[in-house]
């Protein structure tokens, strides 16, 4: 008991101000990074091309002129394309089906990759900002 008391006394009391400053600094840094790096959509009319490539490498191509700002909104404006999947508040729509073809990572061992000029997009369909003249590919991709 005495040993415990001595141990407790030997421990320093943490500085509340230092802790609070650390937390505020982390919070501020996060907000700055978010404001600087968040995807910025483009206003005005954009013409984009969207290719859908299926498992057997056959595909369909769509062109659209749209006022929308994100890829999902543009996809919603194309009546020939139907998309589905699960939606999270954090990351938006996670594509599972395109034109009734399912690529579910858990069930099929495959996913729908979203490519911009043949490079993987950094954002999902809901958060991918579109710009005039861009070429997107939604490709059935087996998991490695």
């Amino acid at each position: 008991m005495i040993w415990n008391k001595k141990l407790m006394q030997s421990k320093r009391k943490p500085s509340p101000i230092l802790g609070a400053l650390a937390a505020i600094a982390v919070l501020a840094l996060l907000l700055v990074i978010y404001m600087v790096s968040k995807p910025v959509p483009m206003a005005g009319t954009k013409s984009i091309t969207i290719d859908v490539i299926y498992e057997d490498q056959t595909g369909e191509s769509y062109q659209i002129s749209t006022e929308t700002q994100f890829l999902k909104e543009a996809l919603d404006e194309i009546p020939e394309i139907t998309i589905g999947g699960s939606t999270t508040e954090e990351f938006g729509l996670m594509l599972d089906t395109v034109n009734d073809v399912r690529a579910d990572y858990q069930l099929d061992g495959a996913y729908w990759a979203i490519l911009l000029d043949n490079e993987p997009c950094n954002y999902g369909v809901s958060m991918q900002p579109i710009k005039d003249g861009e070429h997107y590919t939604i490709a059935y991709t087996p998991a490695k």
Partner: protein
Amino acid sequence: MNNKNTINTRELVRDALLAALLLVIQISLAWVPNVELVSLLLILYTLVYRKHVWIILYVFVVLEGFFYGFGLWWFSYLYVWAILVGFTFLMSKYTVPGPYGTALLSGIFGLLFGLLCAASYFVTGGLGAAIAWWIAGIPFDVVHGISNFIITLVLFKPLHRMLMTLKRMEDSYGDSSL
């Protein structure tokens, strides 16, 4: 005399029960995005049950995998909660943890949760994907950090007192290792 390196039946049952409690509380709060009690409970388990927290933590992580499926997020759970436990051990070594200090620890952990989880996305999708994934989730990390801070500040003291009382009662039953 109980060997410090062995685990007796009572401890095993208690650890399993605390892991199950962690899972049930996580699931019951899953509908509120990024508001959770797991951080607070892991801090408390670390302070009260010391090294037993590792058993509780990894039973919880495996149960999470069985419940939600072993997706990419699950691999980040293998290390992300361990970081919180590690910092709680460090904190308790050098200071006397109170509501304010643990609330700050829990808050900062919540703020950095996305960044810590992004490491597993770096392995699979590369740096660009990991950074984009982290940045997209920053508003939710902010909610996570602030809610962790408030929850820990409010609940730390009563829950710590309750767990310490239970621990003392358990200890008073004496050694019953099989």
